[in-house]
């Protein structure tokens, strides 16, 4: 069964990918979905066995790399509670996405390929989470990146999809490079890449320093920061986040799979997995907290004004990932895992719901051209509402248990970064509620804004699309409550050794402290969320926005200009894309063209390399042969001069040992060459 969890998705990918012609579109959909569903079922059984019954499973497979005693890498699968928690998320969402895709991608001629990619993606993700070493984990990591490229670029005839896929791949590679560096640093420090060996020896190495770029650096801090930078790429944290919204070019189920449950969670998973290392690097923890907090706030602020229904959800993903990273930075890895888990469900629900809306409205994604869909697709509306309420942390839904726990813990940690995280996180929570309700309002509740044909043709989706929504909505409602005690309950033995939280010797356990925050502080996020939601309802329902917009674009005063600037600023994603294009991408391309290509490849190397040397030699020889002008008196002069020089140089030195002779000869030669060049400037009658 544990083998099948890993290899069934691979099997289904192979069947659908290589045998798609024989089993047809329908067959490919059914076979892959059934395979992944069986995987999902097995994952839940594994969750029961490993998580609930607390019996971690380790399966050694075979030797991979064996270089004497120096590096002995073996492949192995490790199922501990962290792995199985990730597994039930990944495989459940993936199986629902498979089912959903059958209907959503119906009529697409390349459905087998799509299904194959989805399954391959699931396989990579399962490989990533079940790996027992960093090397295998990185294998899954890279493979996930490749599959995201293939999936985003599924409609490869669209130039925008191509560009987005390349962007996703390249920005991930930037993070992957630091991940590789981190892995190499781990190997330098620990001499192995196995989790078990590394994590059991970190505390011994808490004072170990290594030389990195000629600086002596605390080894574990360096490793943590490098791993975190890898996670920044994959989890779309501030700095390398721009690929995530652009990756919405792929089909909607892809967005649900990649950007809700699987790929972006890989970065957070890596942080959680590396907790024994990161815990011994307090400086890295502060950086992780601050980057996570800023991402949460930044993405939420952009989400406020986006008009594309998928982009809003994408930025919300980015923001929620910020929360998870923040929780990791506050060394509450179990809370990060819990939020990862619940977020996977309600974000998949939101994406699939958005897909349902897009499907119903004839591929219209602009929220300004939707509206009033509550009458046409009430089921999708309910599901989206559940997802949105869960996302904004409405009490007793899944998001409430995970997100508010993060904010409480941030408050409970009496450090500057904890307070920072709490303040900005709470603000971001308000923004989250605002844009969630804004999405709901603009899509479902407002007046109809689209074309009449779209409304005429709009319909509720078939059961393959609605059933996954239903199941995910169950997850979004109940999974927070159900899994709360297991994953983040105080003293819960569920995660066991899967994560490591260093006991705080100075000021009590953050977890206990957070439980004793006064009730008002605990309610703050909920209050702010609800007020954000109400604000958005008020603004949109009472046409405030319309009035403000009219004011902005008609009257021209200071406040309106300011609001317009803020709106444009946020709508343009803080101009980060422009900054990257203008200050990084374009200079790099220019560097590539002007410096490395024109100056080096076609410049210096052409001059001093083979081509340049042959060219200059032929030039020089042509000049030298022009010395033979054919005129006797020139020859005579040359002979006369040469003999004179020869005699002069030879006679100037009495010592005629070989070396001096040689030097004199060299001198003579140089003088002759010099004379030759003098000659080039003399008018020589070359022709008759």
């Amino acid at each position, binding site marked *: 069964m544990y083998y099948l969890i890993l290899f069934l998705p691979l099997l289904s990918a192979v069947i659908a990918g290589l045998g798609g012609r024989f089993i047809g579109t329908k067959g490919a959909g059914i076979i892959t979905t059934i395979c992944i569903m069986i995987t999902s079922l097995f994952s839940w059984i594994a969750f029961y066995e490993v998580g609930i019954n607390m019996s971690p499973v380790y399966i050694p497979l075979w030797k991979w790399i064996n270089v004497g005693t120096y590096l002995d890498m073996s492949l192995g699968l490790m199922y501990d509670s962290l792995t199985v928690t990730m597994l039930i998320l990944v495989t459940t969402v993936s199986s629902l996405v498979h089912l959903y895709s059958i209907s959503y991608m119906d009529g697409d001629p390349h459905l087998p390929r799509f299904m194959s990619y989805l399954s391959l993606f699931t396989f990579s993700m399962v490989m990533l989470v079940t790996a027992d070493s960093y090397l295998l984990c990185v294998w899954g990591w890279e493979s996930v990146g490749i599959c995201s490229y293939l999936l985003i670029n599924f409609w490869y005839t669209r130039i925008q999809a191509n560009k987005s896929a390349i962007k996703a791949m390249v920005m991930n590679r930037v993070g992957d490079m630091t991940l590789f560096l981190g892995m190499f640093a781990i190997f330098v420090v620990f001499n192995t890449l196995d989790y078990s060996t590394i994590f059991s020896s970190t505390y011994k190495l808490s004072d170990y320093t290594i030389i990195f770029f000629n600086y002596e650096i605390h080894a574990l801090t360096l490793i943590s920061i490098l791993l975190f930078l890898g996670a920044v790429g994959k989890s779309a944290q501030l700095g390398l986040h721009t690929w995530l919204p652009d990756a919405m070019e792929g089909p909607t189920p892809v967005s649900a799979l990649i950007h809700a449950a699987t790929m972006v969670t890989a970065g957070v998973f890596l942080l959680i997995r590396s907790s024994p290392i990161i815990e011994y690097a307090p400086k890295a923890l502060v950086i992780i907290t601050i980057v996570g907090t800023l991402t949460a706030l930044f993405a939420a602020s952009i989400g406020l004004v986006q008009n594309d229904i998928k982009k809003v959800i994408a930025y919300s993903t980015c923001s929620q990932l910020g929360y998870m990273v923040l929780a990791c930075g506050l060394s509450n890895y179990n809370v990060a895992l819990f939020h990862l888990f619940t977020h996977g469900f309600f974000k998949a629900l939101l994406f699939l719901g958005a897909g349902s809306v897009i499907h119903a409205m004839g591929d219209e994604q602009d929220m300004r051209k939707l509206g009033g869909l509550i009458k046409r697709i009430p089921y999708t509306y309910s599901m989206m509402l559940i997802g949105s309420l869960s996302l904004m942390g409405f009490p007793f839904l899944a998001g409430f248990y995970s997100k508010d726990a993060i904010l409480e813990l941030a408050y409970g940690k009496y450090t500057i970064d904890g307070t920072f995280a709490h303040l900005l996180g709470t603000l971001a929570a308000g923004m989250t509620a605002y844009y969630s309700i804004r999405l709901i309002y603009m899509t479902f509740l407002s007046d109809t804004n689209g074309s009449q044909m779209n409304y005429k043709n709009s319909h509720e989706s078939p059961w393959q699309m609605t059933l996954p929504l239903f199941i995910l909505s169950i997850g979004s409602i109940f999974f927070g409550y159900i899994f709360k005690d297991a994953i983040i309950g105080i003293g819960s033995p569920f995660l066991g050794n899967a994560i490591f939280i260093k006991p705080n010797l100075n000021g009590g356990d953050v977890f206990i402290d957070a439980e004793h925050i006064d009730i008002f502080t605990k309610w703050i996020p909920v209050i702010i969320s609800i007020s954000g939601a109400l604000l958005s309802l008020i603004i949109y329902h009472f046409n405030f926005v319309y009035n403000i917009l009219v004011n902005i674009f008609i009257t021209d005063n200071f406040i309106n200009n300011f609001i317009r600037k803020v709106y444009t600023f946020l709508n343009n994603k803080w101009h980060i894309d422009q900054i990257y294009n203008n200050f990084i991408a374009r200079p790099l391309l220019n560097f590539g063209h002007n410096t490395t290509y024109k100056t080096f490849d076609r410049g210096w190397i052409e001059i001093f390399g083979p081509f340049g040397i042959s060219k200059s030699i032929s030039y020089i020889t042509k000049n*030298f*042969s*022009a*010395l*033979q*002008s*054919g*005129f*006797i*008196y020139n020859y*005579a*002069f040359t002979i*006369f001069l040469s003999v004179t020089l020869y005699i002069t140089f030879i006679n100037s030195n009495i010592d005629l040992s070989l070396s001096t002779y040689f030097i004199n000869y060299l001198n003579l030669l140089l003088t002759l060459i010099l004379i030759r060049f003098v000659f080039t400037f003399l008018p020589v*009658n*070359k022709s*008759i």
Partner: protein
Amino acid sequence: MVEQYLILGFVLFILGTLGIVVNRKNIIVMLMSLELMLLSINFVLILGSAILDNISGQIFAFYILVVAAAESAIGLSILVAYYRVRGTISVKFINLLRG
């Protein structure tokens, strides 16, 4: 006294050389300059023979005389042959073998 004779020979040699180098008109002048150079060498050889009281210098001088005569004969005959072909003996136009 000896230096003066030596200088005379040297000057004659240089004159002959310059006659070849500087002359751009007539190839006969070149041959004459060549003869002058050989003459100067002969002069120096004879001078050395007289000073050093050694006969071999004079023997060489005779040899050179013979060689110079032969050389000028051959050179002039080449010149005549060349004139028959080209119709001119102007040095300016003898540059068919350029590099």
